[in-house]
Structure formats: structure tokens, C-alpha cells
């Protein structure tokens, strides 16, 4: 009997060969890799769309595209970057890292894991194919406010709705998997309050996703009903309410923006701790801060809607609640600084990205605080000030943290060190590019340039030109990133299992590259 089991086991200890390995895989490392490459592809496609947008805005007047195509670009850019680039990248990191960090052999539900990834290419295939449909792709912004996205939408909106449903299903499955894995498969001795912060951040993120993805699904389903089945959820003429759409959307949308930043908090904490060679300051306050941010994220949604004409009481409530978020966010920043204080710091590429994350995310946080002040928001709302704000938290925020994570863990994934010189170049180009692109957008926003405009008044010309130059620099430097990653996958200096002098955690206790199966026997954690 036992011999049979042994044999059975032997057949499965390496990856299958050929293309089918990737289609049928249930291995968390393979699926993590798939997610990461998929998100990189989407990052480049969404980035190309951003280049179209910035090229059109290089000068006043219409030069390159028509307004209707411009609107399609800005819609797809937003949808692809949010749902196709940032979220799948974090799910990819979770797949690779959560089992290794908690000493589990794999995700708890490996087949579900395969399905949740393989839904994504179909979802985005459908979304991108709408570009070639009659009437063009969705053109109503990534926030798709009704009735622009219902009565007045191009026919492709139905495909958009279907694609959002699939993305949502994928996210929910992924989140269930993360929660079940973390709750059930931690190595003996690893209490919740001993979990690595990245694991904590993903546990919270997964709960947020399960809470709000169905709300998004509800919103798009109501749109579908309004468009095809004669209901009037969002149509005032039929007794509905267009503002209802915004409430539902942002009830999803605000937790969504934290879904895109909480894992970044986890990543940054690990990297700063490693390269400061000093234990993270205030671990438990970091956990509580993330929990508070997650809970507050459910009661601040209407700060995206200060101008829809809510009653005074609602405006006041959402202003105060939003300002409150600055407290736990501040705690996190202070803790990171305190970790660096009296440390023994070196500046490898992951650390450079992590420090840039802290500085630039904080700047994004400041503009967020300004936006929370309702009377001032009446001036900022829907201008480039908002564009600058959310790009500061998303690009040098989420995206930088993902790049930091890639540089930090790629020696563990591939067994090779990345090229330190090229990666520093990548960092500095990205850093300069991102600031040259987005910092001037604060100014043109304050000066009065509305967002989602394909053309603008002459006083905004200079800084739009600068912003476009920065965008192309940032875009081009991501080609370098692709090159560095490929170069590391192919070869390079062999990495030790420890990789970084100051690294702590179970993932550093296995060989580099990490064997196909790790922790078949759970390690013991004190």
C-alpha cells in the first residue's frame, strides 16, 4: 500500500513539460508567475494607451486622435491598469509568497487557483476586442457613470459588462483562496500576530475584495438590465436615480483603491526592515493601522461625490470620516521612518523603490487630505489635481511597490541576481519620469484644467508638454525593466538562499531558486 503511494508521489515532483504545464498547472509558483507576466503585459498595453493620451495632450488642439477615440483610450487605460495590471500583480505576488511565508506547501485550493487565473485572459480579451467593434470601445471613463454608460453608451458596453463580471469572479475566487490558505495552512506556531506583514496585508485585502466585488457585479448587472431589459435603476425618467449608480460604484470603488495599496504596505514593510537591518518598528500598530484603514474604507465612499448635491449632513460626515483615514496612514509612514532611524542601511534597488514609495505615496496622501476638505474639493474635483493625486498613490505607490517586490524576490524566484547597475538606472529613470509626469499636473489642476479633456485652454500648454515628456521617459524606462527581468530569468550571478543579509522569514530558508514544491513538511515557528 505504502509503496503505491510513494510511486504515485514520485510522478508528480516536477513541473510538466511543454505549454500544457502552464494551462493545467495547480502549482502556486507557476500560477504566481502566470499572474505576474499577465499583469506585465497589461501594464505595457495600458501604458501604450497612456502614451496615446499624453501624446494628444502634448499641445493644445486636436492632433493625433479624435475626441471619441481619446475617451476610449482613457477608459481602457483606467480599466486595464486597475483590473489588469495592479490587481493581478498583487495576486501573483500573493501566490508566490503567501504559501512560502507561512510555511504551506501550496495554496489551499489549487484548482480554483488555476481557474481564477485563466479567467483573466478571457476577460481582457473581451474588453480589448471591443476596440474593434462597431461604435468603438467603452468611452465613459473607468468609473462608467450612468446614464452615459447605459442609455448613451456604445453597443460594446454589453461586452464590457460581461468582462467585468468575469474579472470579479476571478478576484473573488482568488480572495477565497488567500483567506482559506492563511486561515488553515500556517506552519505550527505561527500565530496571527506573528504573520509576516505581507500576509496580513493580503488577508485584509482578500476580505475587502470579497466584500466589494459582488457590489460591482451588482452595479454592472443593473446597467445590463437598464440597457437590455427595460428597467430604470439609473434612469430618472423611469423613476430611477443616476446618483444611485455612483453610490454603488464608489461603495465598491473606495475599498478598491485600498485593495490596490494594502499589499504595497506589506511589501514596503518587509523591504525597509531588510535593508535597514533592523526589526520593523511597531509591528502590531502596523497591523491595527491596516485594519482601521480597511474598516474606514467602507464609510468614506461619497467623498468621490461631493459635487452630486448630497445633503449637508452627508457631506460633513464623509469629510470627517475621510480625514480620519490620515491617522492610521500617518502611523504607517511614521513607523517606516522609525524603522530606518538608527538602522544600518544599504541602498539596493528594492530599497530605492521602497523609499521612493514612502516619499511619493506620502505626497499622494497629502493631496488626498486636501481633497477630503469638502469646500476645497469643490475646486479640485474632476480637475488634473485629482489626476495627479491618484497617480501619485497608484504609480509611485502601488506600481513602485510591485517593482520593489520583483527586485526583492526575483533572486528567490529565478535563483539569479538581477543586474544591479541596470536596475538602478531603471529606478532613477522611473523616479524622474514619474515626477516630471505627475507633479506638474497638481499645478494645471489647481489652475483649472478639468480631467478627461482631449484638448485644453492655452494657459495649460507649458506644463502639459512637460508632463508628456515625463510620461514618455517613464514609459520607455519600463522597456528597460522588461529587459532586466528577462536577463535575470535567463542567467546572472547565482543567488544564495538567504539572498539579502538582513532578510528574515520562511521564504529565505528555502533554496534559490525555490524548489517546485516547498514546505511539504511544515516548518516549526517559534
Amino acid at each position, binding site marked *: 500500500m505504502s509503496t503505491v503511494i510513494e510511486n504515485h508521489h514520485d510522478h508528480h515532483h516536477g513541473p510538466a513539460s511543454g505549454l500544457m504545464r502552464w494551462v493545467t498547472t495547480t502549482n502556486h509558483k507557476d500560477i504566481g508567475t502566470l499572474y505576474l507576466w499577465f499583469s506585465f503585459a497589461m501594464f505595457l498595453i495600458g501604458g501604450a494607451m497612456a502614451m496615446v493620451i499624453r501624446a494628444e495632450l502634448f499641445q493644445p488642439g486636436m492632433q493625433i486622435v479624435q475626441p471619441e477615440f481619446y475617451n476610449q483610450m482613457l477608459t481602457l487605460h483606467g480599466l486595464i491598469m486597475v483590473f489588469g495590471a495592479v490587481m493581478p500583480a498583487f495576486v501573483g505576488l500573493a501566490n508566490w509568497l503567501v504559501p512560502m511565508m507561512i510555511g504551506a506547501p501550496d495554496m489551499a485550493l489549487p484548482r480554483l487557483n488555476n481557474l481564477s487565473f485563466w479567467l483573466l485572459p478571457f476577460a481582457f480579451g473581451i474588453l480589448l476586442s471591443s476596440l474593434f467593434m462597431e461604435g468603438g470601445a467603452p468611452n465613459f471613463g473607468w468609473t462608467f457613470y450612468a446614464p452615459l454608460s447605459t442609455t448613451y453608451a*456604445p453597443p460594446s458596453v454589453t461586452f464590457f459588462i460581461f468582462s467585468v463580471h468575469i474579472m470579479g469572479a476571478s478576484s473573488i475566487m482568488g480572495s477565497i483562496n488567500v483567506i482559506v490558505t492563511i486561515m488553515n495552512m500556517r506552519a505550527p506556531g505561527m500565530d496571527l500576530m506573528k504573520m509576516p506583514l505581507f500576509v496580513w496585508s493580503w488577508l485584509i485585502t482578500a476580505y475587502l475584495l470579497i466584500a466589494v466585488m459582488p457590489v460591482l457585479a451588482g452595479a454592472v448587472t443593473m446597467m445590463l438590465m437598464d440597457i437590455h431589459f427595460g428597467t430604470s435603476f439609473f434612469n430618472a425618467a423611469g423613476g430611477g436615480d443616476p446618483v444611485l449608480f455612483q453610490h454603488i460604484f464608489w461603495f465598491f470603488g473606495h475599498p478598491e483603491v485600498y485593495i490596490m495599496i494594502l499589499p504595497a504596505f506589506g511589501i514596503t514593510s518587509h523591504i525597509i526592515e531588510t535593508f535597514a537591518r533592523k526589526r520593523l518598528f511597531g509591528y502590531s*500598530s502596523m497591523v491595527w493601522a491596516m485594519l482601521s484603514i480597511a474598516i474606514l474604507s467602507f464609510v468614506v465612499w461619497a467623498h468621490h461625490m461631493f459635487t452630486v448635491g448630497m445633503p449637508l449632513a452627508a457631506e460633513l460626515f464623509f469629510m470627517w470620516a475621510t480625514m480620519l483615514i490620515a491617522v492610521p496612514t500617518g502611523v504607517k509612514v511614521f513607523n517606516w*521612518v522609525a524603522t530606518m532611524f538608527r538602522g544600518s542601511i544599504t541602498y539596493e534597488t528594492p530599497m530605492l523603490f521602497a*523609499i521612493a514609495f514612502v516619499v511619493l505615496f506620502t505626497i499622494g496622501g497629502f493631496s488626498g487630505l*486636501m481633497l477630503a476638505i469638502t*469646500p476645497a474639493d469643490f475646486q479640485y474635483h474632476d480637475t488634473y489635481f485629482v489626476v495627479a493625486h491618484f497617480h501619485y498613490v497608484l504609480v509611485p505607490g502601488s506600481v513602485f511597490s510591485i517593482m520593489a517586490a520583483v527586485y526583492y524576490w526575483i533572486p528567490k524566484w529565478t535563483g539569479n541576481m538581477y543586474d544591479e547597475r541596470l536596475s538602478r538606472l531603471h529606478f532613477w529613470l522611473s523616479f524622474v519620469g514619474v515626477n516630471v509626469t505627475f507633479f506638474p499636473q497638481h499645478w494645471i489642476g489647481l489652475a483649472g484644467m478639468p480631467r478627461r479633456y482631449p484638448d485644453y485652454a492655452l494657459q495649460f500648454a507649458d506644463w502639459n508638454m512637460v508632463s508628456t515628456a515625463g510620461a514618455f521617459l517613464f514609459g520607455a524606462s519600463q522597456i528597460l525593466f522588461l529587459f532586466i527581468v528577462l536577463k535575470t530569468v535567463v542567467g546572472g550571478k547565482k543567488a544564495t538562499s538567504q539572498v539579502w543579509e538582513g532578510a528574515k522569514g520562511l521564504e529565505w530558508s528555502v533554496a534559490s531558486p525555490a524548489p517546485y514544491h516547498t514546505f511539504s513538511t511544515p516548518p516549526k515557528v517559534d
Partner: protein
Amino acid sequence: MTLKGVTILKKLKAVLLWSCIAVSAPINLFAQWDNLNMRPGVTDVSNEVFELHMLIFYICCAIGLVVFSVMFYSMFRYTKKKNPEPAKFHEHTGLEIMWTVVPFLILVGMAIPASQTLKEIYNDEEGEINIQVVGYQWKWEYRYLEDDIKFFSNLSTDMDEIYNLVPKGENYLLEVDEPLVIPTNTRVRFLITANDVIHSWWVPDFAIKQDAIPGFINTAWTEVSKPGIYRGNCTELCGKNHGFMPVVVKAVEMDEYTDWVMERKEAAIRLAELTEKEWSLAELTERGKGVYQTNCVACHQVNGQGLPPVFPALAGSNIVMNDKAKNIEILMEGVQGAAMQSFANQLSEIDMAAVITYTRQSWGNAENGDGSYVVPKDIVEYKPKI
């Protein structure tokens, strides 16, 4: 040697010159600092909003200065080279409490003036003058509720400027054919709504930004102290010409405003008289061309080809060529569930007849269809049917 020296000197000069330009360019741009910040505006409310904005901005700067100073100090002072042995501490309850409570108190200090200003903005009394603002794809309509004046305000920037065929004017994309006119030192209340999708009516100098939502009426008010022309935009994505429906408000002294109201009323009477006149085909086509360019080209295009499938072609359309009755019906009532809106209240009888006639006479429609045209009386007769 000398020759080489001269070349080097020349090169050096060029480098110096270019670096001067490179350095001074941002400085020149910074010299227009006013263009990089919010404007205080011309009402009490807008000034208060500006003060709030500067206050929160300075608070953020101060916090940033403290946090980043400690951070950069640590980054330079505690490198591995200078501090090979890291400290061991990793928590401090007192510190944690301090940096939770202090930011909280700062926020409370910020929330108080913000709440007060917000209360003032929400003071919803009726105005001395009440104006309904209606957003359409892609223009604004202003209805003066007391004086029974109403008109549309369209972008007046030439298409050739937008497509870079001629130089752009000073108020490029911020100019309209008919601005909203309001009196100074008078409480003016706006009742803001929309006809199709959501728009948002923004005048930065009044600190008013209020969404225009179909089926709902939002209010805003202002009291402008300084006569002048104030320019703003639509700030909610409303379709392809979202960027091309500016708001222009002309604030004038009360006397001038009263004169303007009289003038508008007389103009309305003159227009009614014109409706009775016999119009020739040539007159109607000529007038219709202008109406078409202001109201129709955005969707149906200059050449009548439209942008199918959302915006159908008029050139070669069976309705436009042969079905006069249906043609009038569509213009008067719009098309249910499609982007085509009713123009019955947007165009005068004359302009309505003229624009239908123009489309029926253009792009070969007259030659290929029945060639019939529409006169203002047809529209007057249709009106009771709505």
C-alpha cells in the same frame, strides 16, 4: 593650437548658453506662479475656499518637512558604513500614541473651519435672481425664471482653431456665443439640472462646481462683487465633446443687467414676427447652415456622414430625403433611447425649419430624394402635437 582653443571656447559658449536657457526655462515658468495655483476668485465664498486650500496646503508642507527631515537624516546618517551595528529597539507605546493623537488634533483643527465654510455654501435661500442651468450634450441652457428669458450657450471657438488650421485665439475653448449674464452684488441662485447625461457646472472664480443630473435639481448660489467675464468648464465626463462645452459668465452692474433683460425681451418679439414672414428656399438653407454648424456637426459631422452606429448619417438617409413628416418629428421629439435629443425647446421655429431644410438640400439629398423643404409655419403647426 589657437584654432583648437577657439573651437573649444565656441563650444563652451554654446554649452553655457544652452545651460542658461535650460536653467531659466523652469524659472520663467515659475514666474507665472499665479497660473500654478488656485485663484481666490471674486466672491466671499471663493475667497474662504482659497484660504482653506492654502491652510491645508501649508499644514501638509509642515508635516512633510518634519517627516522627510527625519527620514532623510536617517538615510544619510545611518548607512551601513557609518552605523554598522543597527539599534535593537522596535516599539515604543508612547511614541505610537503621540503620533496617533497629534495628527488627530491637527485634523480636528482643520475640520472646524472647513465645516463652517461648507455650511455657508449650503445656505439654500432663494436668490433675488433665480436661473435654471440645464446641461445638454454639449452645451448649456440658461433659463431666467423671473424674466422668462432662455437661451443656449455654445462653444464659439472655430473648428479650424481646434484642428490647428488657424492660430488659436486668446480664449481658446473658453468662449461661447452667448454668455450667462448676471448682475453684481446680487444674490443669484442657480438651479442646476441636465437633459441627457450628467454634466457638471463649474465656475472657478465663484467656487461653484455642481453636478447637473437629469431628473434632479441641484442648487448653488453666488454673489459676485466685481464685474467681469468669468470662465469655467463642464467637469463631468459627458461624452465626446465633454471638453468643448465651456461656461462663460458675464457679471455686470445692475443697470446694465436691466438693459440687457429689456433687450432680450425685445429680441424675442422680433423673432416671433419673423416667423410669420414668407421664407424662400435660399434664405432657409443659408440660415440652416449656420444652425447646423452650431447644433448638429458634433454628432452628424460637417459632411452629414455622422459617426455610425451611435450617430447616424444624414446624407443619403431615407427620412431626410423622402419622409418630411418623420424628419420634423425626430427633430421636435428626439429619438427614444438614443443620443438624439428633442430640439423643440432649443431652436426657434425659424431655426428648426431652416436646419431641416438645410439637411434636406445638402449632400445630394435633394437630388436623390423628393426635394421638399420645411417652412417655419410647418413647425408652428406641429408644436401643439407634442
